[in-house]
């Protein structure tokens, strides 16, 4: 199997008429990485992928694969293989012919093709299904055939466009592990597109969070989750509680915010925004549901929040408590279930505390819409 090569996007702009689908993207993807673009539907993920695979010419900027500029290189000449959002298996060819299509193009004999197809079928655990038509397979099987067909072309970079979105939940979770395993086995670069943050976090070495054509943040899963760069990244990846207010005082990476509802709150400025917050600016603080814990009712201080409980639910591994929050949004608290007794506090006012390092502050901005 060919080793993975790096992919670089340099000042990439893609416009459709007046509409800007991708705005000044700069990404360096290391060879052999599992790299994800994560963003809501319509943010330009597929567009970026099509520019990498060569179906679309960038309006400005460059795509480099293995350090080579791909300008003017057609999709059939690039060392990439794309797994289409709808798979695009050839409906009239048998499974094995689908898989070995790239060899047929190069003029390989039927025996050679069959042999290679059977090897790949074994790898994707579909031995003996080569003589079926794609329509005779299940969704998950088709998925794996599409992967095998792409791998058969021995690409240096595999591009996957929301490959799991059509599968049901169980299969999706199973395929996550499987994809990651395949990637580690073949060792080539995977560029993966998804709107599902769970997929991105579990599989990726590195993630780019996208919003409306703009890349907000690039980093590994932990960084994206724990140290989001923008309000959008903070609210799109995982669940988060937002507290709005005005910066009252900044010292180093600590900031004191006069919040709209919950008094003064102390928080850590997210790494990307250190030095960018001034007194009097609008600010947002994000605290994850699992970073909040119950405290003695009535306690006050710069890392305590008091609010009225509006709803409670039991989710098995956690108890969720919903409290009246800022701007119509509820504050969600998730308490891990250790088997402790849990009394209802509906309607009461309760107090929560958090560790300052778990409260991330940044200049106010656009949130992801649920």
């Amino acid at each position: 199997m060919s080793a993975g090569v790096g992919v670089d996007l340099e000042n990439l702009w893609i416009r459709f008429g007046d509409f800007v689908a991708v705005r000044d993207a700069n990404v360096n993807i290391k060879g052999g990485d599992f790299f994800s673009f994560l963003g809501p539907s319509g943010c330009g993920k597929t567009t970026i992928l099509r520019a990498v695979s060569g179906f679309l010419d960038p309006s400005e900027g460059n795509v480099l694969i293995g350090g080579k500029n791909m300008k003017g290189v057609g999709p059939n000449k690039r060392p990439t293989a794309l797994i289409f959002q709808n798979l695009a298996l050839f409906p009239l060819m048998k499974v094995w012919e689908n898989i070995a299509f790239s060899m047929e193009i190069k003029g390989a004999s039927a025996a050679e093709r069959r042999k290679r197809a059977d090897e790949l079928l074994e790898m994707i655990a579909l031995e003996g299904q080569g003589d079926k038509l794609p329509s005779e397979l299940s969704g998950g099987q088709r998925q794996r055939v599409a992967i095998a067909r792409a791998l058969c072309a021995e690409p240096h970079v595999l591009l996957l466009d929301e490959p799991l979105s059509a599968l049901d939940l169980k299969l999706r979770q199973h395929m996550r592990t499987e994809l990651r395993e395949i990637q580690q086995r073949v060792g080539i670069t995977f560029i993966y597109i998804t709107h599902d943050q769970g997929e991105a976090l579990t599989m990726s070495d590195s993630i780019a969070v996208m919003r409306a054509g703009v890349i907000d943040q690039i980093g590994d899963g932990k960084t994206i989750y724990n140290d989001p760069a923008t309000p959008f990244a903070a609210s799109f990846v995982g669940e988060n509680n937002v507290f709005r207010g005005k910066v009252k005082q900044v010292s180093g990476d600590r900031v004191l915010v006069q919040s709209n509802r919950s008094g003064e709150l102390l928080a850590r400025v997210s790494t990307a925004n250190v030095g960018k917050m001034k007194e009097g600016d609008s600010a947002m603080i994000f605290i994850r549901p699992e970073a909040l814990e119950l405290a003695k009712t009535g306690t006050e201080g710069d890392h305590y929040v008091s609010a009225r409980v509006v709803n409670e639910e039991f989710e098995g591994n956690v108890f969720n408590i919903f409290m009246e929050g800022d701007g119509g949004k509820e504050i969600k608290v998730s308490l891990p279930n250790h088997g402790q007794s849990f009394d209802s506090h509906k309607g009461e006012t309760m107090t929560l505390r958090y560790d300052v390092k778990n409260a991330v502050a940044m200049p106010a901005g656009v949130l992801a819409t649920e």
Partner: protein
Amino acid sequence: MNLSFLRLSVWIYLAIFFAYLLGPLVIMAVTAFNSPSFPSATPWECLTFEWFSALFQDTRILNGIKNSIIIGAGTVVLSVLMGLAGALMLTQIWPKLRATYYTVIIAPILIPGVVLGISTLVFWDRINRMVGLGPDSVLSSGLFLTILGQSTFIASYCMLVLVARLQRYDTALTEAALDLGATHAQAFRKVLLPFMRPAIASAAVLAFLASFENYNTTTFTFGEYPTLTIELAQKVRYGISPAISALAFIIVILTVFAALTNEAAIRRRELVAAARREATVAELSGGGVKLPGFLSGNAAAGLLVALAIATIVVVGTATVYSPDQCITDIREQKRIEADLRAEELRRKRDEERKLKAAEEPAPAAPTGTGTSSGSFGGVFDPNALQNAPAAPEAEANPPAGNNSGFGGVFDPNALKGTDN
């Protein structure tokens, strides 16, 4: 009560409908096997196959068929190619222009065939002169002009058929092929073309049939290459013979054959697909799938085989069967009848003459004494009306035939006007 009445009327309606639809065909088929030289189903005289041999000896008809097939083949190739190009263009073109383009490209269907024929003739004649070629150049050959003229509108039909299929095509398939290293030509040949194959086959059949039956356009362009329709039209002007019924019968049988073959093939494909779905992995890879036989559960295939056997039997009989005896008998019988009639007529006249003689003392000179069956029956002889070419002997068709119980409703003589 009410319901059964309703059901009955539905059946009657269906019977009338099918009689209307198929009746003429059946009558015509019968005339192809009846011996009178004017196509007629009643009275039934003798079973004969001579109209088929007459057909196969008619060089003009045979030549017409040959020309029709050559022109049909040329039209199929040209129309399917142009139709496919037009259909592909339609999917590629800028969306705002699509409606306009569509209208322009199907306009030839709405233009009368005569206009297309004349304009093809005039246009290529101009070109021919501009290029400076003589009157017998390729550009003015009937073959070339007819193929071109017919293709102007048949290509539009083809395009409609192809567009319908192309709209179901997922362009991601072409992209997938390109992405896997195929050139545009390879993607077209290995992915798009196989997908289009059923529609291309339909379009080809449609184009061939449309070309084969075309008259309006061809009549202006055929030049030295009269097609079957042209030949038939010219023949009918001089009266028709059951040889034409024989030709029509052959065409009907071929059509039924083709339809049944197609139906049987489709049914078989369904059965095989069903068998594959039920097959296990081991059976599939080991090639051990029990596929259904061609005839099992396939009514169309059964009918097809029955029809094939019937054809073989009929053709077999035709080679050994000779209607000579029957024809002689019938002729003898007719002669006797005619004689009888003549005899009776003579007797009547004699009586009249006697009566007149009784009234008038000076009898007029007897006119038309030796009245033969010929001069008498000539009025009723369809040959006289039809100028049927090469009518074998004077076959005085006795008027009794037209006075049959059906009152001549089913007599093709009565239908003659529509047949032409």
